[in-house]
């Protein structure tokens, strides 16, 4: 009886507090970012039906960044992509408020790496990083006036080392390769 009670309590705690496992928390953070965008801009995301392809292209991205000679390093592991298309992204002069809300959303587990904003054009790129065992998770949020993309990939430390040398370029490359269908 006590055992059943304990299991029920644990299950309840997981339901209420979320999973204790890092993988589940990663998913939560990704979803939390998507929600933050939806709430601030009053937009709705579309799920990308090409998640498997995105994972493959991430490998290609890293290889490209490494000059096409380091495919073995670029075993990305996993990728998540969410699109916002044909919607209005207007921060109404409060782009810094959105930046702060995103930072608050990811404050606990992620380190902000680079944030570039162009208020007039409503263009924003945010790159966040966190450790994931022997590798790193990289979260890239790209927002333009009529579309946005949230991409999360897992990269090898060597790829992250390259990212640090030119973080902006890596953000663009990840997003581009994970979202453009070049078939």
């Amino acid at each position, binding site marked *: 009886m006590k055992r059943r009670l304990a299991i029920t309590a644990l299950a309840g705690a997981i339901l209420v507090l979320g999973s204790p496992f890092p993988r589940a928390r990663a998913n939560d953070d990704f979803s939390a970012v998507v929600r933050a965008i939806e709430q601030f801009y009053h937009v709705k995301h579309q799920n990308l039906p090409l998640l498997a392809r995105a994972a493959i292209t991430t490998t290609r991205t890293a290889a490209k960044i490494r000059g096409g000679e380091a495919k073995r390093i670029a075993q990305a592991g996993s990728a998540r992509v969410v699109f916002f298309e044909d919607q209005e992204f207007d921060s109404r*002069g*409060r*782009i*810094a408020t959105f*930046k*702060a809300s995103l930072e608050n959303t990811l404050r606990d587990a992620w*380190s*902000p*790496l*680079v*944030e*570039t*904003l*162009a*208020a*007039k054009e409503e263009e924003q790129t945010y790159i966040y*990083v966190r*450790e994931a065992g022997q590798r790193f998770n990289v979260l890239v949020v790209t927002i333009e006036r009529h579309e946005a993309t949230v991409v999360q990939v897992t990269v*090898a*430390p*060597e790829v*992250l*080392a390259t*990212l*640090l*040398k*030119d*973080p*902006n370029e890596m953000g663009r490359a990840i997003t581009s390769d994970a979202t453009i269908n070049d078939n």
Partner: protein
Amino acid sequence: MKTLFQTILKVAPLVLLLVAGAALTARAQSARLQMDQLDPLANKATETVDVKLDERMMQTTARFFASSDPGDEEIKALIKGVKGIYVKSFTFEKEGEYSQVEVESILSQLRGSAWNKVIGVTSKKESENVEVYLLNAGDQIGGLVVLSVEPKELTVVNIVGPINLEKLAQLEGQFGLPYFNLPPAKPKTKQNQ
């Protein structure tokens, strides 16, 4: 009484270590400027760049720069001991979009402390002003700040850890650092007009 004395003797090294550790942390922290107060400028800026590379991120990934690549080896040596690189840069469409209050919020952190201005370049024609400060930490340099003030641009670079102008020049264009084309440091601050 003897027991108490013995306990104090046992605990004393630990306390000393803690105090020394706290002092070192405080020194490291003082090399890091508070720059978040500038964030609201992003609402008016046509372009904002915010780079935050903390010690853990730098040192973790520094291990993975390819030893086969001479360029990577050079970078690895340059960032050895660096505890953070922080950049905030704002570009505006027209003049007067930021005030002296924002500039002062940075300068006030550099006054009356161990920070020394080693370069000050003022161009009256272009209304540009670039200042470089180094933090003295004993016989070492504990940090560096570059403050670039232009009518339509405000840039602050803060590097925490052992860094000098030569290293800064080599790191320009990498890790989100802009190009400054700074003149070499002179013993006495000189203004070029």
